[in-house]
């Protein structure tokens, strides 16, 4: 099997998510990996670079990021290829498996075209560092009329990315404005990424890009800690595939407790400081 992998880079370094795709692709066949430099309009340049290298390729893999999905759609349209997004695994017959409806249903998907474009979720394989990545200049796009005036990398501090983090600590309405500091302290103590419910992002306590749920990011970390989040179905849709879920909420009837492996009915402002003290004492 011939595979083509699109490698996303941040500050010039391939993302862990992209290296996982290379690892997954290497377990399935021969791999060519391509990336695009960040100077210029990456999307059209990536579509062209991948389309130029698609001859004889069976499967084209991209990370399931916003750019990855954007490139995948345009590429599949251009190539007349099959398109499957948010794949979590491939079975022995090469069929893609994905979770839909917020992880409630698992489906297998097939394409009748000779080539398929797929986006793959994080943590689908171990990262591979053993692969040459060809880097194409974004300015080479022959057809794009889009001009990029300015780009900047969003500062995330030292915290891991929300979608690929092993541990996510999320805050909701129940933490209150000042309480987001507790979310950050617990995340930093655990080396975790920060997430939020829509109530918290709508309130402006944290940026929109941190939102977990149906209209935000879907995450499935090893550990998800929900602080002051009631667990509306839209939020559950973005996190219920997490391996272990811990919830702290003052309302014992909050739906989040229905999916939590460990639920604490109590005030975030009381529970979290004590938890921080206990975690620090372990070290």
């Amino acid at each position: 099997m011939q595979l083509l992998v699109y490698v996303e880079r941040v500050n010039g370094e391939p993302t862990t998510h992209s290296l996982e795709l290379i690892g997954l692709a290497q377990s399935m066949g021969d791999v060519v990996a391509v990336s695009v430099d960040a100077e210029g309009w990456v999307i059209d340049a990536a579509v062209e670079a991948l389309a130029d290298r698609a001859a004889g390729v069976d499967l084209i893999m991209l990370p399931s990021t916003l750019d990855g999905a954007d490139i995948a759609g345009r590429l599949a349209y251009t190539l007349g290829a099959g398109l499957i997004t948010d794949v979590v695994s491939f079975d022995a017959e090469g069929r893609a498996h994905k979770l839909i409806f917020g992880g409630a249903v698992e489906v297998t998907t097939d394409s009748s075209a000779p080539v398929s474009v797929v986006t793959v979720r994080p943590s689908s394989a171990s990262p591979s560092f053993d692969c040459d990545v060809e880097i194409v200049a974004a300015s080479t796009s022959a057809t794009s009329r889009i001009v990029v005036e300015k780009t900047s990398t969003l500062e995330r501090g030292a915290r891991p990315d929300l979608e690929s983090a092993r541990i996510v600590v999320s805050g909701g309405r129940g933490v209150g404005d000042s309480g987001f500091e507790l979310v950050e302290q617990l995340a930093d103590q655990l080396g975790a990424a920060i997430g939020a419910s829509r109530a918290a992002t709508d309130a402006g306590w944290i940026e929109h890009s941190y939102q977990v749920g149906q209209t935000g990011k879907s995450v499935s970390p090893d550990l998800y800690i929900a602080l002051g989040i009631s667990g509306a179905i839209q939020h559950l849709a973005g996190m219920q595939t997490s391996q272990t879920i811990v919830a702290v909420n003052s309302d014992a009837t909050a739906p989040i407790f229905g999916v939590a492996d460990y639920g604490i009915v109590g005030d975030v402002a009381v529970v979290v400081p004590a938890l921080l003290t206990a975690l620090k004492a372990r070290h």
Partner: protein
Amino acid sequence: MRVAVLVKQVPDSWAVKRLRGADLRLDREACDRVLNDLDEYAVEQALVWQEQQGAHVTLISMGPSIAEEALRRGLSMGADEAILVSDDALAGADARATARVLAAAVQKVAPDIVLCGVKSTDAGMSVVPGMVAAALGWPGLTHAAAVDVSDGQVRVRRETEHALAELNCALPALVSVIEKINTPRYPNFKGILAAKKKQIDTWSLADIGLSSSDVVSITQVTGGAERPARSSGVQVVDASGDSAAGLVAFLESRKVI
């Protein structure tokens, strides 16, 4: 300026969604249907231009006839007119077929700019905006946190996980908008009354110059199973911060810390 806004009717995001056994398609009959949340931001942006620049706002949707309800919602917010592309051949259309249909409808409407949300809350693939741009051969400026149109140019502040970018290009163009861009208005009584009198045109595939062979789905769902529902585990009540030791022991037992 003519603005077209692509919208979709989706199951209410509070609804529990299931696949139908017979054809592995979403059981749309079983849930309440609404205008996709994320499309309302695109409608709002178009209405801002309607107020500020006298833009004419046309909503375009693809779906069964019942999807008129979602268009009616957009009309009650203030859109001028709406078009529903509806055809039996479109049942179960994949993203590619959907993009082809929407692009053909856009060509017939001939707007200066197309606005849309970044994804639907049901399929959630986030690929249709880029695919429609590809089908039109237009620039696709996706994930806009801010958008501005003047002198035949569109400027966008694009925001993704890792990067901010300031983009511009000449119209016509397609722009997808993120939630951050505005707060969609709630239809008022006057808007709801006015919407009842506004026209919703229904177009068939033939009306937009396509035939059923143009909209064959390449990608099919071949199997599906509901995953076991999660159940709740341990629950403790903590009034004084005494839950910490138990939680730490639990996390250690799960080998997550």
